[in-house]
């Protein structure tokens, strides 16, 4: 039984101009501890799928189950990084991370060491007491990542966390992300439109078609960990990238 079982899931939105078929039907299985990327063109329903996995949106058809139980309402055991970060301007970086715990009724004092470790891992320990608006875009995303991880979620859902960053910062955070995943082996679903990012970070890449998104194929990435610069320069890496690129080329997306 897969950890997350997405079965024939369809999402339609009712709008003023009638129903919009946003996603599906698609069937995707995610095993516990996997790092799965969802790659697809803009508007194909990737964010919608993540929201349905988190129980924040209900599928119009089909079902999503976690460990065999159907998701019927908002899940509180996930860590989500939304496309726009959820750092609040009235709290410092550290207090923003604590916000996740406080909202859950937990005492953040018990997690000081854990927060310190998280901040250390993403290189933000010197900025713990700064306000989010004093940080660069890349630092904000790192802080948002800590916020999404601090409660030790069962599943981490990342919606284009690096989309708005410059290439160099993106490389650095990818490395952080990989290190953290190798340490914790939490189940991660990453939405991205960067094929390279997907190949570098994932154990499995799901290719989503243009809207309404369906699963075009699943590619297991059999490259050694950690995937540093030497792996990225290997012919195998390039082969995966062009294999996925060819799919989108067929759809006329690239």
């Amino acid at each position, binding site marked *: 039984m897969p950890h997350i079982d997405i079965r024939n899931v369809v999402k339609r939105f009712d709008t003023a101009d009638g129903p919009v078929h946003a996603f599906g039907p698609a069937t995707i299985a995610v095993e516990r501890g996997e790092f799965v990327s969802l790659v697809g063109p803009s508007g194909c329903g990737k964010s919608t799928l993540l929201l349905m996995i988190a129980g924040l949106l209900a599928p119009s058809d089909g079902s999503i189950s976690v460990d065999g139980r159907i998701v019927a309402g908002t899940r509180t055991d996930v860590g989500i990084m939304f496309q726009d970060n959820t750092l*609040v301007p009235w709290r410092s970086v550290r207090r923003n991370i604590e916000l996740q715990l406080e909202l859950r009724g937990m005492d953040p004092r018990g997690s000081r060491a854990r927060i310190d470790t998280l901040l250390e891992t993403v290189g933000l320990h010197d900025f713990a007491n700064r306000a989010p608006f*004093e940080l660069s875009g890349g630092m904000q995303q790192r802080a948002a990542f800590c916020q999404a991880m601090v409660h030790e979620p069962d599943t981490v859902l990342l919606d284009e966390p690096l989309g708005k960053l410059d290439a160099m910062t993106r490389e650095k955070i990818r490395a952080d992300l990989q290190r953290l995943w190798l340490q914790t082996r939490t189940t991660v679903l990453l939405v991205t439109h960067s094929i390279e990012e997907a190949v570098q970070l994932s154990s499995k890449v799901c290719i989503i078609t243009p809207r309404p998104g369906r699963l075009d194929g699943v590619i297991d990435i059999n490259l050694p960990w950690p995937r540093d610069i030497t792996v990225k320069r290997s012919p195998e890496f390039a082969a995966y990238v062009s294999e996925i690129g060819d799919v989108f080329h067929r759809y006329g997306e690239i």
Partner: protein
Amino acid sequence: MRRTQRFGRAVAFPLFFLGLLVAWELSITVFKIPRYILPRPTEVAVAARADVPLLLRYTVVTGTETVLGYAVALVVALPLGLAIAFSGLLRRTVYPTLVSLEMVPKIAFAPIFISWLGFGLLPKVIIVFLVCFFPIVLNAVAGFVSLSEELTRFTRATGAGTWRAFFKIRLPAALPQCFVGFKYAAMNASVGATIAEFIGSDQGLGFYIQISTGNMRPDLAFAAIFLLALLGLGMFGLVTLAERLLIPWDISQRRIRGKN
């Protein structure tokens, strides 16, 4: 260097203001404007000095009307704004009613209230209340309903209950927009009091301005106008101070955003 720069910035406004007063003073000589049309600033100061006790007493009268009306508006409008933001029924009934009433110039009610309630404090407080009430409710509603989709979902995904979500997310997120209303109301509160006094009163700075103008004493009227300006500045200053104490993060954020 830095110090002289800061000094230069600090004195720029007072110097400019003083320059304006000097220009006023001189232009009266140059253009030979008669005193009963426009007095000189120095004449205003001399006339005011002779009438200090009454001017002060009237400042207290108008100030009381202003502060009371504002305070009552705050106490009524803020909870009402909250209720509207969190109740679909109120948002469909009370809210559109308030939006349409907002179009009516509140001051138009002043003669009616004065005919009902006489020349005393109460009708003025009600007018100030009306002037302040709308910007406070409408901005509070705007503040409380405009929580971003991301923050709403983030909060839901933590499983936080209504109260915890309110105090940790919704309230602080709404405060900057609420303060837009508080400040707008503070700027207009003394306007409401003054006009209400024009329409019917036997004391206060608005009353004083009417009497002085009727007596061909614009110098005294200008003295009262100056005190009204101080009153308005005081109100605005207090609200700005509260803003600085309650949401310092918003002010620093605005400052940083403004710079780049």
